[in-house]
C-alpha cells in the first residue's frame, strides 16, 4: 500500500519542478523508469497523485457508491442532506479509516492530496460549502440517552448501535429501506464524527432517508445532548470489538477419505443432500479445458448450493460470488483420496463485513460436516 503513495510522491515530484526535472540526465531518468516497473506491477490499484478528484472517485469509490454517488453496494453519498451536513474532516477520516467490519475499507494508501481531491469532487454534487463543526464534546446524561436511543433509534440502528443489516442500498437485491442505517458503535464512525455533527443530524434528520428530525419529533435540546452522549459512550464497545484474525485460519478445509474416489464422490453427494444442499454438477477439474475424455479422472469437483443460505449471504453482501457455487474437490493421489474445499472463514476477510464473517463461519461448519460425513 505504501508503494502507491511513494509512486504518487514520485509523480508529484516529477511534475512539481520543471527546472529540477531538466537537471535529470538520461541515466537517472532511465533508473527511475526501471524503478517504476516493479512499483507499478506490484502496487495496489489506487490512483496516482496527479489525478483529478472525479477520476479518483471513479477509480476508488464508484464501484460501491455508484458513478454518480447515489449508492449501490455502498450508501448514497450524493444525497444533499448527507453531503451538505458533513464536514471535510468527517469525510477525510472516513476515507482514511473506513468502517471496520462494515464493508467500507480503509484507503490507507491514498495520499492526503488525493483524499482532498475526492472530497472536493464530492462537494461539486451540490456546490455547497461544508459546515464547520466545533470539536468540543457535548455533555449529557448517558443513562437517559440510552433510554431515548432504545425508543427512538434502535429500530433502525440496532439495539447496540450496530447498524442495519446488509450493505448500503444495493440495487441488485430487493431491499426494505432506501439506505442502510449506519453503525454508530463503529470505531471508524466514532473517530470521524464530532459530537456537533451527530447533534446536527439528530436535530435536522436526513431528508430522503428514514432519519427524521428529532427536534420535530418533540425531543428537547437536552434530550438530544443526552443521545449524543450515549452514542459517544459506544466508543468503549467499539474499541473492544475485534475481528477474528483470518491469517490464523488455514486457506483450505482438507479431509482424507477412507474409501476410493468414486465411493467418496457418492458419499459426498449423499452428505450434501443430508445437509439440504442442492447438487449442481459433478465434473472433472479439466473439463472444458481439454477435449472430452482427456481430462484427469482423478480430479473431481462436486458443485452444490443451498439457495436459502445463498440468498441470505447475498443480502449481507452481493459480492460473495467468489464463494459460488459451493464446491468440494475429490482428488486421488498416490493411493490417497482427499477432499478439499476453500475455507470460507479465510476468504471472508476480503470483505470487511462482520455479518458475512458469521455466515462464513456457518458455511465452514457445513463444509466440515459434509466432508466428515463423506469420509467414512
Amino acid at each position, binding site marked *: 500500500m505504501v508503494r502507491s503513495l511513494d509512486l504518487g510522491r514520485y509523480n508529484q515530484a516529477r511534475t512539481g519542478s520543471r527546472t529540477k526535472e531538466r537537471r535529470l540526465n538520461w541515466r537517472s531518468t532511465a533508473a527511475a523508469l526501471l524503478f517504476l516497473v516493479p512499483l507499478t*506491477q506490484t502496487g495496489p490499484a489506487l490512483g496516482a497523485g496527479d489525478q483529478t478528484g472525479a477520476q479518483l472517485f471513479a477509480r476508488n469509490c464508484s*464501484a460501491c457508491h455508484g458513478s454518480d454517488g447515489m449508492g*449501490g453496494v455502498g450508501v448514497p453519498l450524493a444525497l444533499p442532506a448527507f453531503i451538505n451536513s458533513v464536514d471535510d474532516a468527517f469525510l477525510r477520516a472516513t476515507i482514511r479509516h473506513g468502517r471496520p467490519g462494515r464493508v467500507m475499507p480503509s484507503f490507507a494508501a491514498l495520499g492526503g492530496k488525493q483524499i482532498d481531491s475526492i472530497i472536493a469532487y464530492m462537494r461539486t454534487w451540490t456546490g455547497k460549502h461544508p459546515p464547520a463543526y466545533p470539536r468540543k464534546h457535548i455533555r449529557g446524561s448517558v443513562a437517559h440517552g440510552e433510554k431515548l436511543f432504545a425508543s427512538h433509534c434502535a429500530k433502525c440502528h440496532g439495539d447496540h448501535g450496530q447498524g442495519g443489516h446488509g450493505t448500503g442500498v444495493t440495487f441488485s437485491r430487493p431491499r426494505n429501506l432506501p439506505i442502510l442505517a449506519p453503525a454508530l458503535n463503529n470505531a471508524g464512525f466514532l473517530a470521524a464524527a464530532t459530537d456537533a455533527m451527530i447533534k446536527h443530524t439528530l436535530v435536522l434528520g436526513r431528508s430522503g432517508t428514514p432519519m427524521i428530525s428529532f427536534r420535530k419529533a418533540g425531543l428537547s435540546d437536552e434530550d438530544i445532548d443526552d443521545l449524543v452522549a450515549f452514542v459517544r459512550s459506544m466508543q468503549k464497545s467499539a474499541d473492544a470489538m475485534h475481528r477474528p484474525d483470518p*491469517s490464523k485460519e488455514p486457506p483450505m478445509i482438507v479431509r482424507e477419505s477412507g474409501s476410493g474416489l468414486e465411493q467418496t464422490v457418492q458419499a459426498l453427494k449423499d452428505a450434501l443432500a443430508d445437509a439440504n444442499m*442442492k447438487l449442481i454438477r459433478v465434473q472433472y477439474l479439466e473439463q472444458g479445458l481439454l477435449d472430452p475424455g482427456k481430462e484427469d479422472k482423478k480430479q473431481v469437483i462436486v458443485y452444490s448450493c443451498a439457495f436459502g443460505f445463498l440468498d441470505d449471504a447475498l443480502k449481507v453482501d452481493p*459480492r460473495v460470488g467468489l464463494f*459460488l457455487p459451493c464446491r468440494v474437490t475429490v482428488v486421488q493421489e498416490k493411493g490417497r483420496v482427499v477432499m478439499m474445499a476453500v475455507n470460507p472463514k479465510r476468504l471472508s476477510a476480503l470483505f470487511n463485513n462482520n455479518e458475512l464473517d458469521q455466515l462464513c463461519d456457518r458455511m465452514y461448519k457445513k463444509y466440515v460436516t459434509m466432508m466428515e460425513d463423506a469420509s467414512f
Partner: protein
Amino acid sequence: MKRSLLMLVLVIAASFALPTQAAGPAHGLLMIRVKQSFPEAMSVLQESIADEGYTLIRVQRVDVGLTKSGYKTAEYRIVFFGKADEVHRLSKKYPDLIPFLPLKLAIFAEGNDSIVVGANPRVLEDFYPDKRLRPQFRKWERDFHKILDRVQYGN
C-alpha cells in the same frame, strides 16, 4: 541515438508495466462498476477473458437457480475460465491449489449498471508461501486487471 533508443525502450517497457487500475477499493477484492446493461457487460467480459488467452469454461447462472428456488434477484453469473496447460501443470505439482482452480469472476446487475468482482489472485500468496508460485499469482493478477480494465474502459 543509442540513448534515445534506450529511452524509448524503457518508456515502452514502463508503459506496459503501468497498473491497469481497474481494480476497485477493497484490498483483496478486485471490483469494477460499468455503465452497461448486464448482457452488454457480460459479452465484453467474455471477450476480454478470451483476449487474454483464457478458455471460457462455463457460466454458472446463479440467478436462475435462485429464481427457481423462489428467491428474487437481479442477473447474477459466475464466469469460470482457465488455461489448460496452467491448470494441468499446477494441479499436478501443487494439488492443494486445486480448490482455487479454475479462475472465476462474478458479474451481476446493479440497477442500470453492472458490477464485476473477483478475488485478487495475489491473495493466494498468503495461502501458499512457496515462492515458486508467486510469478503465477502475479501473472493472474495482471491478467485480471487487464480483463477488468477492458470491461471498464474498453482498452
